[in-house]
């Protein structure tokens, strides 16, 4: 018998003041799996996480954690008795507690004595290489430091499912990288499952085992990062996971989706360069072709000026089928 999934959500419906926020969402997260929830703001990512954590009561549907129903019917298990750890978008650090006491908090709630909880907390801070921050309060911490304390607090809970609610949304690029590296490292040795909400496609694709695309409270698609990137169910899903152009298929088979790397400059087809962006490791060209506008990515610095006439080759495309609009 396969082990129970870490999380199983069935037909979840949530409404605020009659406005639906989640409409019949169902998904499963296997033990140890990382699922990214990718969607624009307002798509229902936070709402889904809050329903799983027990912060709100869904109007319909059920939530099972590790095989145990925690939401469903008249049964609502309160957050503290759910086996989850939560990392918040705005860090949610308690202003009156030091980093050490914040991280010791979950152990204290488990019944550990103050000394033991603190030494456990110190160990976690050391593992995250922020032991030097132990005595500081949130007001004395930078955003990245605060979020690492937030992560440490979730780790201290030792749950079998982590819930990340856009943890990097308020962090700048460099700090975000440090935080994600840390997260990646922790992921390996914790073995716990995680649901990671984000609106950043790169983050979702790079971090997750599977990606769930969410829009206006509905799941559009669930699949491996490669699947959702290469085989989006529709144009909206495609745009969520990264830049994409839509052109007429050269063989006349209707519109097709082309990712920037799926075409290269040089080749039989004709185009005119309309714009060029230097991106560091690569350059992006916006090419006007008879089939439509196309975004092409080439390694290295720009090689063609705006207005140049270039040839191009289509390497790969994905047909926008009947499901597209």
């Amino acid at each position, binding site marked *: 018998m396969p082990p129970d999934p870490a999380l199983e959500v069935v037909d979840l419906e949530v409404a605020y*003041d009659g406005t639906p926020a989640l409409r019949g969402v169902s998904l499963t997260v296997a033990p140890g799996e990382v699922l990214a929830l990718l969607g624009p703001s307002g798509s229902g990512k936070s709402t889904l996480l809050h329903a799983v954590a027990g912060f709100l009561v869904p109007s319909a549907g059920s939530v099972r954690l590790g095989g145990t129903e925690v939401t469903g019917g008249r049964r609502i298990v309160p957050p503290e008795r759910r086996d989850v750890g939560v990392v918040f978008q705005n860090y*949610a650090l308690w202003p009156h507690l030091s980093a050490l006491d914040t991280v010791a908090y979950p152990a204290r709630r488990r019944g550990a004595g103050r000394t033991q909880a603190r030494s456990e907390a110190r160990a976690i801070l050391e593992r995250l290489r922020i032991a030097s921050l132990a005595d500081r309060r949130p007001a004395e911490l930078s955003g990245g430091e605060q979020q690492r304390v937030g992560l440490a607090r979730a780790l201290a809970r030792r749950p079998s499912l982590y819930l990340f609610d856009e943890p990097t949304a308020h962090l700048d690029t460099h700090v975000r990288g440090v935080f994600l590296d840390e997260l990646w490292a922790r992921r390996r040795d914790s073995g716990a499952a995680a649901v990671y909400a984000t609106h950043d496609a790169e983050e979702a694709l790079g971090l997750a085992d599977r990606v769930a695309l969410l829009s206006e409270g509905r799941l559009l698609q669930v699949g491996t990062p490669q699947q959702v990137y290469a085989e989006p169910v529709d144009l909206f899903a495609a745009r969520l996971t990264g830049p994409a152009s839509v052109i007429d298929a050269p063989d006349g088979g209707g519109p097709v989706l082309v990712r920037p790397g799926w075409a290269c400059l040089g080749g039989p087809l004709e185009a005119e360069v309309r714009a060029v962006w230097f991106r560091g490791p690569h350059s992006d060209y916006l090419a006007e072709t008879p089939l439509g506008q196309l975004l092409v990515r080439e390694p290295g610095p720009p090689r063609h000026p705006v207005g140049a006439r270039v040839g191009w080759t289509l390497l790969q495309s994905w047909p926008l089928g009947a499901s597209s609009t």
Partner: protein
Amino acid sequence: MPPGTAPIGGRAGATVAMGVLLAALVVFPVLRLGAVVWTEGADVAGILGSPGVLTAVRNTVVLAAAVTVAALPIGVGTALVLRRPDLPGRAFWQIAVLLPVLVPDFVLGYSWTQAYARAGFTDAVLGLHWAGLLGPAGVWLVLVVNAAPLVYLVVAVGLAARAEPDLERAARASGAGSATALLTVTLRLALPAVAAAGVLVFVLTLGTFAIPQVLGAPAGFDTVTTRIYADLSLGGDPALFLEAVTLALLLVLVAAACVAPADALLGPRLRSTRPADAQGTAAAPGRRDVRRAQALGLAGYLALTLALPLAALLLSSVTRALGVPPTPGNWGLDHFRSVLTPRTGEALGRSVGLAVVTATLLVVLGGLVAVLERRRGGRTTATLVTLTLVLPGTTLAVALLIAYGRWLSGTLILILLAYLAKLWAFAHRSIAGALDRLPPDELRAARAGGAGPITAVRTVALRPLAPALLGAWLVCFLTALHEVTMSSLLYGAGSETLAVVVLNSQELGRIGPTAALSVVLFLLVAVPALILWWVIGRLAPRRAAGLPGGATRAA
């Protein structure tokens, strides 16, 4: 621009103008009182050492402490219960718990005697009465009922500003049950607000007069304020007048000793940069039966403390005479007729005008002080305004008469000055709370967008501040409308206020007309209050109640 400076208004000019106004309204009159004690050689040691005064001072301090200790849990509990979005009838309760604010406190005191004292309503119907009502216990309980809504208001604002739902969610998700999360996070975060509310209640109770006079004096329970009143009542003896002034100054000193350190300590901690429309919501759903029990508890509390007394008061106002059964056969509107004379109409117009001017000026002044307060040195002014709160109305009126009576005696302007001095702190404190929650970036953005300082405030700050401004306006308007003590001392020919006319036509003390007056005042106050409340509700930005994480759902 140096960091931390809010880009609002002029600089030193405004500060100086405020300082002058404060000096004129508060400092100078209080100093004039001090000069009276000094130059007329009051025997301060003798006065403060006399057994009667010592008893009154001890009673006052113990009473204020006891009221504070009891009002805090009630107010905090109310605030915690009312932030649950799933509380049945929440919108109704949010208004209902504030009703005691609308009832003039002497009305509240009278209504309790009508309900629970001997020969009161419960005695007539059930044969039950509470003998302790007339005495320290009764004074204490009614003051607690009167003060609890203030605690609720202050703490609710504090909770909304500081206890972000995510902080409690984080506690719950870290394994804390609802009670533990409440203790370790919510209450810890609300602590500065709770402390501020405690200071406010303590200081207000020091200076409260009507309820101790109605319920305590008959039982020989003296407080400093009733003692001041008794001193002034007996025969124009200069020594007694000096004793009254000395006692009033003592109250000011005690209040200053409480308020100044509290403001210095708590002020910075009450700051927050949450959006002005942030609303305190609960972190996690609770059990339905618990909510129902909480709603029932609220209903029971309000029924016993407010609804029954007010109903008993209404009954007294329509009952022809004391001692006859309050049955329909004995009902009549005689008491209302004696209260509502043609002269009342004229005075009503004057009172409404005065209340409107007072409230409007106070909102402007309160806002200015709140803005100044954000700068260095402003905190002193905020503390100063609080001092007049504690001065008994009679004494403040005497102080203003001594300071300005030479030129303004008997004019409406003097009454207006008295109202401004007395109510400034109310307006200021509620506006300051809201202003603190206005993100400075919004004003900076307006300035960067080409708006002058005033335009910036008008276009950007006014809208989110509107509920707080209207709320402050309302409290000032209502209080000024039913103010009795100061206007009855300051009025002159052609400046009689409504309360003066009504009280002069009958000696206060006859229950029928007093009850009728109270009912009229209550309606006069409650009707505009409810209308304005509705307007405030309309103006308040529509809140997406229960949205997780305080996240805005962009379209």
